[in-house]
């Protein structure tokens, strides 16, 4: 337990980690709490058209009189959801492939490696464009599913490399000698020994999913229902918010995405410093 407490103490002293977490948590709180406090839906026409930010409508309104702040809060929700689901699925696939390839080696490794490399060189967004355009994507869950299915390869590669270096360690040999089976060894011996690494990989996948989803939404291939930050940018661009000078329409959604992803990256740097004491000296 002192180890955990020690790690926590170091973590709380890391400015990057604390600042990044603060921003992420504030935005997460906004996404979770604010929609419940707003009486109308994000796409309802509630206010005056094209009004700049005011006390009533904090982020102003769209050309159609929708509340930009309401859209922002709901959109953040979609952003976190797609990051969690897409990043989570990619992490699960990446771990499954990476652990198996790295631990089993041999032919299994060859085949998994081949698949990983193929998915790796396929440009994910362009594949998603085709899939979404044909199959149509109605909700965030389906979008996240497709994102997860295309964005795991680099994680699999990284996890495979880590597994390879752990495979020949004494404690793994010991587990093998004591008759533990492969899944057990992976779950109980290998994964815990790289848990910090896995967590940081998940954070990067989380951020990556958000950025891909935003691009898809912006192109107009996002979920056909609901609202997202990318869709807000799409609408703002489509209805000439730029030329009408309605900056309050396109600044918040982009700033929201940048803030979430950027602070996640900063959290990752902080975590890296906490887990690898050497970096703390720099």
């Amino acid at each position, binding site marked *: 337990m002192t180890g955990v407490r020690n790690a926590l103490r170091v973590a709380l002293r890391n400015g990057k980690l604390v600042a990044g977490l603060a921003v992420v948590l504030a935005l997460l709180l906004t996404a979770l709490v604010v929609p419940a406090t707003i009486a109308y839906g994000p796409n309802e026409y509630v206010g005056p058209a094209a009004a700049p930010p005011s006390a009533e409508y904090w982020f102003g309104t769209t050309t159609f009189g929708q509340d930009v702040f309401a859209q922002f809060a709901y959109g953040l929700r979609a952003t976190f959801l797609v990051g969690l689901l897409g990043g989570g699925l990619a992490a699960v696939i990446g771990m499954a492939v990476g652990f198996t390839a790295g631990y089993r080696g041999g032919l299994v490794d060859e085949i998994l490696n*081949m698949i990983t*490399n*193929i998915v*790796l*060189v*396929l*440009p*994910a*967004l*362009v*594949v998603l*464009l*085709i*899939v979404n*355009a*044909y*199959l149509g994507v109605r909700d965030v869950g389906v979008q996240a599913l497709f994102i997860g299915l295309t964005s795991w390869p*680099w994680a699999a590669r990284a996890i495979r490399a880590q597994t390879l270096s752990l495979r020949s360690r004494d404690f793994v040999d010991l587990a093998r000698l004591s008759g533990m089976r492969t899944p057990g060894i992976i779950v109980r011996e290998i994964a815990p020994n790289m848990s910090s690494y896995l967590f940081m990989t998940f954070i990067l996948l989380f*951020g990556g999913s958000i*950025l*891909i989803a*935003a*691009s898809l939404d*912006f*192109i*107009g*291939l996002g979920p056909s229902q609901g609202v997202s930050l*990318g869709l807000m*940018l799409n609408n*703002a*661009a489509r209805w000439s918010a*730029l*030329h009408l*000078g309605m*900056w309050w329409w*396109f*600044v918040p*959604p*982009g*700033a929201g*995405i*940048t*803030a*979430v*992803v*950027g602070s*996640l*990256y*900063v959290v990752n*740097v902080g975590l890296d410093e906490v887990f690898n004491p*050497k*970096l703390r000296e*720099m």
Partner: protein
Amino acid sequence: MPRYFGRKLLIYGLTFFVAVTINWMIPRFMPGDPVQSMLARANIAQPEAVEAMRVHYTDLFGFDLPLWKQYANFWAALFRGDLGISIWLFPTPVADVIARAVPYTLGLLLPAVLLSWVAGNRFGAFAARRKWLDNTALPIGYLLTATPYMWLAILLAWGLGVVAGVLPVAGAYSFAIQPEWSWDFAGSLLQHWLLPFASLFLVAFGGWAIGMRNMIIYELEADYVRYLRSLGASGRLIRRYAFRNAILPQVTGLALQLGVLVAGALVTEIVFSYPGLGHLILQAIQNQDFFLLQGIFLFIVVGVLIANFVIDVAYVVVDPRTRVGMGGAA
């Protein structure tokens, strides 16, 4: 080395095969009759166009043929360079539509990628040496890589285009002039190119700078640097070695980032109505022009594969270890 390239080419060949197969499969997995729903959604007024398309699609999909035959025909058409006929610009062949847009995308993408890579690496290595610069540059770099390409594009278009009014924000050249070989036209091209280029460049620059900074710090911790330091080697020599070695993962990173960079170029073009592939994609989606979309997909995949191969060759040039037959990181 032949083994190294052999493996790479095998992977690229398989990837191409997978991409073509996805392209062939997706319309067939689409619920309902793809020809009918495409025609319905295409929403085209000219009846002769509708009929011609119906014939074309039915012929191309060949639903009455056995599946393997459909698949073989698909490949055969592909090797003839036949990507189908565009619906949006009916009856222009998809290949021609793409060929017209490609120069714009490449003109945007290649300079932005290469310059951001070179500049980002230099800046990252420079920042790693100075603590104050490192502390200020690092957060900015992370902010830049976290920025969605289209948002930075929108901000630049708004700030420099709409508010300041110094640069045009739409198209590849002024609507008032015709494409021709003249200084006027070249100037107009350049003017319209600047903002999309800048937004692509900036986001990518942030990523490369951070990557390089981290790699340099990692290299400066390496044993060979410790050894050189304990022999009193000059800081210049040590920095040169560290930079040289830190470049290697950045070359690999270039290959890994290609997909993201292409995606960035596509959405940036959409923001600026820049007539490249991204703009075409938007038109294809809005006009339900699936042939165009599929053609662009294949084209981009092939482009990315070629770029990957070029990077592989470059890697062999910069990493001597691949040449002595010992593998290397790529």
